[in-house]
């Protein structure tokens, strides 16, 4: 421990945060928004009375939930170029950047988890409200959009945020694609300067502070909401 070198951390702070942390946070934010939107659609599909729609959504969610995120990352890393080629009609797999690839991966993967949360949220709304919506002459989308989803979403905010903290931690796995996210940046400095102990301990500390701080905020929010209701 005597040779603990704080200087290597100080020297690389700019790189770690301006490159790494910005990537991590951008990826987290985009995947959270995309995942919640897509997850809500999946939840609506699952609860739909069209059987094949609900089966497709159930199958997707169960598939995503039974394989490790790392395998999903590898899947999409190779699959997205082919899908892109198929969509654009190109003859060869198109080039997809590491950032776009990871945003798509995390959106698709987290959507499965968000959809389970949103499904619970939608199911927590009394059925009578849906019937009331229909009785007022609203169609499905209007009932969902103005009656059910706003409440479902509000009830689930703490759990959605908790899942987003997990997403924030999970983004560190893009390390396997040699992407410079926060951990990737720390790891690159660690290898260059042979300062693994300092850099990995510092990375752990930063992840801990961010996740723990956010989880305290979620807890406080939860108490606030609990009083309102």
């Amino acid at each position: 421990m005597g040779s603990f070198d704080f200087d290597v951390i100080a020297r690389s702070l700019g790189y770690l945060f301006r490159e790494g942390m910005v990537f991590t946070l951008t990826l987290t934010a985009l995947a959270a928004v995309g995942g919640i939107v897509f997850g809500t659609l999946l939840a609506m599909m699952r609860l739909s009375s069209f059987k094949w729609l609900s089966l497709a959504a159930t199958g997707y969610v169960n598939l995503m939930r039974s394989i490790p995120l790392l395998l999903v990352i590898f899947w999409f890393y190779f699959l997205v170029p082919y899908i892109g080629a198929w969509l654009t009609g190109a003859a060869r797999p198109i080039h997809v950047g590491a950032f776009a690839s990871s945003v798509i991966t995390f959106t698709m993967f987290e959507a499965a988890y968000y959809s389970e949360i949103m499904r619970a949220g939608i199911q927590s709304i009394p059925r009578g409200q849906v019937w009331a919506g229909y009785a007022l002459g609203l169609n499905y989308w209007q009932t969902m959009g103005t009656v059910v989803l706003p409440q479902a979403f509000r009830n689930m905010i703490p759990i959605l945020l908790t899942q987003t903290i997990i997403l924030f931690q999970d983004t560190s796995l893009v390390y396997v694609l040699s992407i410079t996210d926060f951990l990737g940046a720390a790891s690159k400095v660690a290898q260059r300067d042979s300062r693994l102990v300092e850099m990995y301990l510092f990375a752990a500390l930063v992840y801990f502070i961010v996740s723990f701080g956010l989880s305290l905020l979620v807890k406080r929010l939860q108490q606030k909401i609990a009083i309102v209701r």
Partner: protein
Amino acid sequence: MKYNWNWGILWQTSIDGQNTWIMMLIHGLGWTLFAALCAGVIALLLGSVIGVVRTTDHKWLVRLGNAYVELFRNIPLLVQLFLWFFVIPELLPKAFGSAIKQMPPPWGSFVPAVIGLGLFTAARVAEQVRAGIQSLPRGQRMAGTALGLTQAQTYRHVLLPMAFRIIMPPLTSETMNLIKNTSVALTIGLVELTAAARSMQEFTFQVFEAFTAATVIYIIVNLVVVNLLRWLEKSVAVPGFIGPAAVGGGGH
């Protein structure tokens, strides 16, 4: 857009010159399950102790337990594995540290992976055990005390038998999470199922066959484990009680 499918690749000899690729994947599955089993034992034992401690009225023990859970929950698993693999051997006394680093493969990455996965999962088990105990009516603890049981006896004979039955469903999904999480150990060099699929992809360029095979294996494992634990849950159920769905919470 063209992709040349070649499922026959699975039965061709792999890079090691002896086994087929499918055997290599199954070999990887073996390491996945073995690592998950070892880590699971650590997680169940340690997690139960920490979970129990958090429901006692020893203030500083509760705090210590809470601190453990927060610490291990708020650092990404990947970073935790790096700490066990790269950092801890450096911080230990020199002889001990280098003995760890010189462990022959695959133990050099297996041992840190199991420790890391075990301690990480223990925090999650502890949370479930605590929730399970706290979901019991207060009267049960009081009844135990009224019968003249010591605190340890109350836990052993009254609280824990019910609590563990109640938390079977969330423990089932934790088991699945643990099996999936062992894939993170590929970053420190453990050739488990995902890593085996990855190396098959790298050497054969048959990307989608490799990943499909691994995906199918994971799904089968998932089905087997879930059904096994559900059967266990049913066979230990106390007649007349329906375990309330214990805490959910996110996570993979």
